[in-house]
């Protein structure tokens, strides 16, 4: 699989990253090599095999009662991050 520099740019945009001009070529090459390597999975016919997203004990997730409990640190959360102040989201046209 050949990854082009514009593919790198596109994927970087999806991931909220930017590919710097001097990194683009190297990244395209490295990702192409890695994807070439993973192509070997195509040697297997797995169309009838179920996917395994996670191996969980007993095959099911534990659930707890829906009940409010005091948690350590919850009062500190706001303080350490300055109440999540962010730059303005809406800009004028």
């Amino acid at each position, binding site marked *: 699989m050949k990854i082009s520099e514009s593919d790198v740019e596109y994927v970087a945009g999806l991931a909220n990253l930017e590919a710097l001009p001097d990194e683009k070529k190297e990244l395209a090459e490295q990702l192409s090599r890695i994807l070439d390597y993973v192509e070997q999975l195509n040697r297997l016919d797995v169309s009838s095999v*179920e996917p395994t997203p996670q191996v969980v*004990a007993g095959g099911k997730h534990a659930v707890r009662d829906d009940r409010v409990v005091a948690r350590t640190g919850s009062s500190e959360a706001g303080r350490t991050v300055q109440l999540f102040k962010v730059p303005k989201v809406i800009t004028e046209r």
Partner: protein
Amino acid sequence: MNLKNITADRLVSLYRSRDLSATEVITEAFREIDRADKDIRAFISLCPERALEEARRVDSRVAAGESIGPLAGVPIAIKDNIATRGVATTCGSKILQGYVPPYSATAVDRLRGAGAIVIGKTNLDEFAMGSSTENSGFFVTRNPHNLERVPGGSSGGSAASVAAGLSLVALGSDTGGSVRQPASFCGVVGLKPTYGRVSRYGLVAFASSLDQIGVLAKTVRECAQTLEIMGGFDAYDSTSAEIPIEGVARNLDRPIRGIRIGIPREYFVEGMDREVKDRLMAGVKLYEGLGCEIHDISLPHTEYAIAAYYLIATAEASSNLARYDGVRYGLRENGAGGLHEMYRKTRMSGFGKEVKRRILLGTYALSAGYYDAYYLKALRVRTLILRDFQKAFERVDLVLTPTAPTAAFKIGEKIDDPLSMYLSDIFTITCNLAGLPGVSIPCGKNSEGLPIGLQLMANHFQESLLLQAAHNFEKAGGFEIS
């Protein structure tokens, strides 16, 4: 007193008999860190005041005639991707610089509750992505056996701190071998428990379906004791298992005669380091001598493991690391142009090269048009790998392999070639894909004096048998210190 020559058991018995105080030991540990860690650089941060205060508390309990547990007053180091309330937790990343968690991981809380003393946070590959600790956003950690070599990774700081006698026990995390491989490179024991055995609450997520907190120590017994304390069900992690964990340390000395050990032929591939193979084969002989049955087995899908792993792990990472956007944690770059610019600028300057590379790969594998071809296919291959093991465990009790294809490599040797770095994880990642417990134990050194590790894997939740076999090996092989 040097921590290199003592175990937790011995230390605690000296506390109990009042021949030694925790205050002395912790003071001495920080003195040793002062002296040795400027070369090794295992620690990102230290917490001496708090540690000494806790040491005094252990001493006064002993003075008051109260009983103390197996890890009371024992200095332990925590990998810096495990949350510690009030102590900076960076994940080795500039993007989390200055972040102080308002809570501790369940594993840390339980260990501290049992009297273990957290002395500091150890270096790692940024967000645990790497096999050498060279990808840390701050500095490189060196192998105490040879300062020109890597300590392995990503829990390189934790492995180095134990090997150098800077801490007695250290927590690490293992997503593809990140506890076992550095244990092998540094000549210590490294345990990765079954997925679900230890709560992941407070472990900063890299790849959630593969991550597991593990432990590094000089002896199997210390690993077993630590596991017993930190493991078990936790309501804060929906994947944690409600399966009892008691008795692991108590059963260590049981003989292992008649235990069936499988040697998967796919793991003894062309190109394996000669000396690694020789040490391994000597290890197999030792098990035979202990009365174990050795079986040739096959895990036929092993060759696909790295490809599947690097698709699954990066896909999960790209999703998990989306939260580092400058809003909630650590670093925030100026976003004069609005919110999206702030996100992008923060992520560009906060993440290192390898993390960005993996986010890109994972994003690509999940993106429209490629999801089925890459991510979903990898999950299906994962099923085949799991089935291989299920089949094998019908015939054998344990699987024995090398931990890594080589001993510790040189600093700088693989850093510019990500694929060859990924390939060095070949023997450890199947365990994570299948959710199994695995342990790396020292099995000798090569001609350059570098340690070599032997890996054992067991079926889900069979840590007791796994560690029993590991303990019998270290005892019989003379690798045990007491």
